[in-house]
């Protein structure tokens, strides 16, 4: 009883309330901003993210038990103090309202955060289905996507999405997605234009004399090729701050089963956990002292349809910022000499390193051929290399040395040799080229002089070929590739032999390069071999990004986990690549992969030959109904969309939900500040698909708007929270402005009464 009274007294104390508020303040401050470690708090590195040291996100920090305990104690304190020390009367009505409002808010928050589910989903706008000769395939309608179908009798159809106009206008003025595909079906080229929602407007073209190169045909260009544009329902959304490894079986014919999730529980998200540093490349941030080992996290098969219920998977390591890098290491089955060399100025003020591979023509030279690596089978080969083959630059029959900076008269102007590149492999052919700068009066241009003179060309200042062939063609320029002008790293013939051939008189100078010491090349340069492998093999490991180079804006996209699998059913080599890269979404594969997203699963082969794929992503949750993206509209400001986000006024996703009995619901419009609710979940506009120009020759431009990213969340308890906050506001107004007036009136009345009595 005495204890209870003591407790009641303690929790009736305003001092305890103040102490708890101070503690809540400090907890919130260090969790949100971090701990200051430098007096200049405006420096980005002045704040030590304490929360991340505990591996907690903001959400988790404020859902952690210490915060819950503080809030719980505060609520108890608030309740006990209010009941025991503040009489419920007109004067104290405001305080009662404030305190009961705060308790109501806390209860609502416990409910809200206790059941909070939040994530996002990527929904494609349309899917393209193609069927031909009994085969069919469906892909997301994304520019550049390809489908290859092979009939039972060996014929082949290759289809590629050439372009998508996301805002094509129909004759009646309505908007629709227009997709253009090009196809080669059993040797026949064709082009098809399709309009979503208007199958009758499909038009086929075949190669013709039209200015576009295509001529329209009546009917279909290729019999049996059926294509349709349909909605692309998305049944899942991916949960924030969750992690999972997905697993699926790959059938012998290449078809794949559905992804089955295995959740990763309690994975450190902000700190690296690395058991063995040999598992990552030694450079970068791998030497950071903060990296510690962790107990392996078992990935239990929680789903009935898990394809490998008997195989135990474990996460053994995790890195927040790392890039996978393929390097060649020693230990391969065959001779494949590889070296990493460092070239530096003599005072080491500037240095660059190069990876060279002697037997790969595309990777054996650097610096425009000035540095090379070769493999020799015997000493005679080295001797022949030392014999300098005369090569040179010939201008109007006069030879000039191949030293960069060499100048020669060119008509009334000057020719300056800028660089030479020998033995470049282009299209399987080996070619050599000298790049010269030509100057005549105020005119300057560049000429590439190939050893094959038919390829020689002139380029303008922007690097564009000059029309009309060569300027001043009457001055003849020729290039003959020489040999012996480059510094060569010679591997072989003995396994331990690694020498450096430095060009010079009398066959140049040969020096041992195995020691790793700097070798003087003359002209203020030096070179050393940092790493050498005779029997090299490709190996993929993460390179940990140094702390000062970590870009927080990339989120978790640079994170990776190492997964191992145990059990006798797994081959000795286990996973082909145990480091799994983080994926925002578990896409099915290239078929539904949007542009700019990653899809790099790892392969697992069992003893019985069965193959599986593993993918590292977030946990996902099924939505009450699959969502489809009917339309996506970008509203721009005056002047139209300029490519900059600031010229956009709003984004709108028009959604529909797939009904259980088939068909889709009426449309829901989701745009900024305007979410939509469907069966308990709220959908809000999160990201969009901006225009994306082609980055490689084999890519095509995208005008964007091919998908949307929606935030998905529940919001239970919000109205209880709202009630609490409103009560608090009213209470504050009452306590600060009504209560003093009441008190004053009472005081005046008491004074008046006292005066009357007097």
């Amino acid at each position: 009883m005495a204890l209870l009274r003591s407790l009641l007294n303690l929790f009736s104390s305003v001092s305890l309330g103040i102490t708890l508020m101070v503690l809540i303040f400090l907890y919130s401050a260090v969790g949100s901003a971090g701990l200051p470690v430098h007096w200049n708090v405006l420096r980005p590195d002045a704040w030590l993210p304490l929360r991340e040291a505990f591996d907690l996100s903001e959400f988790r920090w404020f859902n952690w038990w210490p915060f819950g305990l503080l809030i719980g104690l505060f609520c108890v304190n608030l309740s006990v103090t209010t009941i025991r020390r503040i009489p419920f009367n007109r004067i104290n009505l405001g305080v009662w309202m404030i305190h009961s409002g705060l308790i109501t808010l806390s209860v609502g928050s416990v409910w809200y955060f206790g059941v909070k589910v939040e994530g996002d989903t990527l929904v494609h706008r349309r899917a393209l289905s193609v069927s031909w000769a009994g085969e069919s395939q469906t892909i997301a309608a994304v520019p550049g996507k390809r489908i290859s179908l092979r009939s039972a009798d060996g014929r082949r159809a290759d289809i590629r999405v050439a372009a998508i106009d996301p805002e094509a206008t129909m004759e009646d003025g309505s908007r629709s997605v227009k997709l253009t595909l090009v196809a080669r079906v059993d040797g026949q080229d064709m082009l098809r234009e399709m309009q979503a929602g208007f199958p009758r407007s499909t038009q086929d073209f075949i190669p013709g004399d039209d200015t576009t190169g295509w001529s329209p045909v009546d009917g279909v260009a290729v019999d049996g090729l059926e294509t349709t544009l349909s909605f692309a329902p998305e049944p899942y959304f991916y949960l924030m701050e969750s992690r999972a490894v997905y697993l699926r079986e790959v059938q012998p014919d290449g078809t794949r089963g559905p992804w089955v999730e295995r959740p990763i529980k309690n994975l450190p998200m902000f700190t690296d956990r690395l058991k063995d540093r040999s598992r990552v490349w030694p450079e970068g941030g791998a030497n950071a002292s903060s990296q510690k080992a962790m107990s392996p996290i078992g990935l239990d098969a929680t789903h009935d349809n898990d394809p490998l219920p008997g195989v135990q998977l474990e996460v053994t390591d995790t890195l927040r910022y790392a890039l996978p890098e393929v390097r060649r290491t020693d230990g391969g089955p065959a001779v494949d000499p590889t070296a990493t060399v460092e070239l530096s100025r003599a005072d080491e003020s500037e240095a660059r390193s190069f990876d060279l591979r002697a037997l790969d023509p595309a990777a054996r030279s650097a610096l425009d051929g000035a540095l090379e690596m070769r493999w020799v089978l015997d000493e005679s080969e080295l001797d022949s290399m030392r014999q300098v083959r005369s090569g040179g630059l010939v201008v109007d029959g006069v030879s000039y040395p191949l030293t960069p900076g060499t100048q020669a008269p060119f008509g009334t102007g000057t020719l300056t040799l800028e660089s030479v590149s020998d033995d470049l492999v282009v299209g399987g052919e080996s070619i050599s080229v000298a790049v010269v700068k030509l100057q005549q009066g105020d005119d300057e241009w560049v000429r590439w002089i190939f050893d094959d003179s038919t390829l020689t060309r002139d380029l303008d200042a922007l690097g564009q070929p000059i029309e009309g062939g060569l300027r001043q063609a009457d001055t003849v320029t020729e290039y003959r590739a020489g040999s012996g002008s480059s510094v060569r790293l010679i591997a072989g013939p003995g396994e331990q032999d690694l020498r450096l051939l430095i060009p010079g008189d009398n066959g140049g100078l040969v020096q041992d390069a195995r020691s790793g010491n700097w070798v003087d090349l003359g002209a203020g340069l030096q070179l050393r071999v940092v790493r050498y492998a005779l029997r090299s093999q490709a190996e993929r490991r993460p390179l940990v990004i140094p702390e000062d180079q970590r870009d927080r804006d990339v989120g978790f996209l640079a994170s990776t986990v190492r997964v191992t699998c145990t059990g006798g059913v797994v081959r000795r080599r286990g996973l082909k690549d145990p480091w799994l890269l983080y994926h925002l979404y578990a896409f099915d594969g290239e078929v539904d992969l949007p542009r700019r997203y990653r899809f790099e699963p790892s392969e697992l082969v069992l003893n019985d030959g069965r193959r599986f794929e593993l993918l590292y992503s977030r946990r996902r949750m099924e939505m009450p109904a699959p969502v489809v993206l009917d339309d996506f509209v970008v509203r721009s400001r005056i002047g139209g969309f300029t490519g900059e986000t600031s010229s956009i006024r709003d984004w709108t996703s028009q959604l529909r939900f797939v009904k259980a009995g088939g068909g889709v619901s009426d449309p829901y419009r989701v745009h900024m500040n305007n979410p939509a609710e469907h069966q308990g979940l709220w959908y809000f506009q999160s990201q969009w698909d901006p225009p994306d120009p082609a980055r490689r020759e084999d890519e095509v431009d995208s005008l964007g708007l091919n998908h949307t990213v929606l935030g998905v969340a529940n919001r239970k308890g919000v109205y209880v929270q709202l009630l609490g906050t409103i009560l608090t506001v009213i209470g504050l107004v009452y306590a600060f402005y009504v209560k003093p007036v009441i008190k004053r009136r009472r005081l005046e009345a008491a004074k008046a009464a006292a005066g009357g009595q007097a």
Partner: protein
Amino acid sequence: MIRSILVLLALALPASASDLFLSQLQLDQLGTVAAFDQGRVKSLDSLAASVMKRITGARKPTGTTNLTEMLDLALRPEAWAGRPTIYVKNKLVRAELAAAMAKAGGSQKDQYNLAETGLVARRHLETPEATATLDRLSRDLMRTARPVEEIRGALSWARPKVLRSLFTVVAPPDGGFESRWFTLDDLTMGGMTAPIFSGIDSEVRRKSIGHWEALVTAWSAGDAGTVNGSAAALAALLPQVNPDPEIYPSSARLSWESWYFRNGNLTLFWLAYGFALAPLLMAVVFQWRGAMRIGLAMFFLAVLLHTFSVGLRWWVSGRWPNSNMFEAVTTAAWFGAFFALMFEMFLPRSPIRGIVALGGAGTGMVALMCAHFMPLSLDPTISNMMPVLHDVWLYIHTNVIIFSYALIFMASVTAGIYLLWRGALRLRGQSQGTILHAGGGGTSMMLAGRSRSLGEVMDGATMILVELSFILLWAGIVMGAIWADHSWGRPWGWDPKEVFALNTFLVFAILVHVRWQVRDKGLWTAFLAVVGCAVMLFNWVVINFTIAGLHSYA
């Protein structure tokens, strides 16, 4: 120090023969033509201000106008070859670049210039040494990558081709709202035959092309007379390309916008608050009636000028100014000052007469000084609002929050004066008897109506401001949660800005309860009011500029 000032003065004054040409230019009319900039049509002066800020920071290397410098960089780049032009804000980067410059043989004067003013010539940034330094610094994402990105951005912006591509002063001839605007170079290249410009009256088109060509040629030749003539002619011709008011803003709006930017965004009005501050302080401390009258009159004038500047920006931008840091700071101060003015006008016999005005004047002066002296941190550029801000809650939540912040600052001013008073008493050995009645706070004090010491009055004033800010801050947080709920799908996301707004509220909650617990209520109230203000400023400054979050735009 003296040398630094001389360097700054030298930068502000026309110094060479080529600058004589610049000083003869008259581009006021051209500055008022409409220019398109990323979804907004603004005056050319306004565009030039935002472009040159990216290149030279707040400096003016030739001491002329932003438009003159922008055109000169575009049309006469050779005059800028050796002139310190690119602004380097980060001091660590400055030091590293100065070292690279020394290594590359740059003069000591240039190094000194860089260290003192932050300005460096392009050629010093393009040496192999400087390039290597920038490459190295760009890899330090935490400290120097962003400043390096800004330098590279400035180098890119300062290219004549890029600058010329920004002169998008030719309205779309077809009159479409979402149609593209064009540069004068586009018009010139299109000539008289390009179908895209067929909607322009042929005479306007011909003359525009002719005057632009004449201006470009005359500028290169340093012929100020021809430049001035062509600029004036273009200023008259360009509005005729598409006079549709939906597309081309009124000349009045453009002229006022140019005037607003040419006059430093009217942030010099901090002086008006400064002039009001001294008599108000004397009136409060020494109870001088004359000083009170003068102080209130000057404060009234200052609020009037501030109201004009906020109103002008509102009209020019077409939206209430509370969408970026510059606007949030200046508008918050206006709210505080306006509240103080109303308070003084409607409660002329209050026991705290002059004190709220004093707080308002202090708040207005500090806010406008920040805007005036830190234009890079408080960017005055009028830009489009982010799509998420297009909501009625922007006007409700944001204004309530910034009003509460202004009151918190005002409370810290009165609390500061109280603390000074207590300190003075302590020095005089008169600290006894200063433990004051606190009762129910500010309203009780206002109702009591008896004469008081300066300490009681200041304490009461602090409480009046704290109580009002306490309610407004809570209401503002709740309104923000309602907005976030329908914008981001959650009312509360533990974003740093949200957390520190709540923490500011917590400090005042602590203040209210500490007041119940301690004897020396005045001292604790003043101390915690200053702490609350510090937390509020921390939220506004450190959280915004250093710690990333969802609210980084305000």
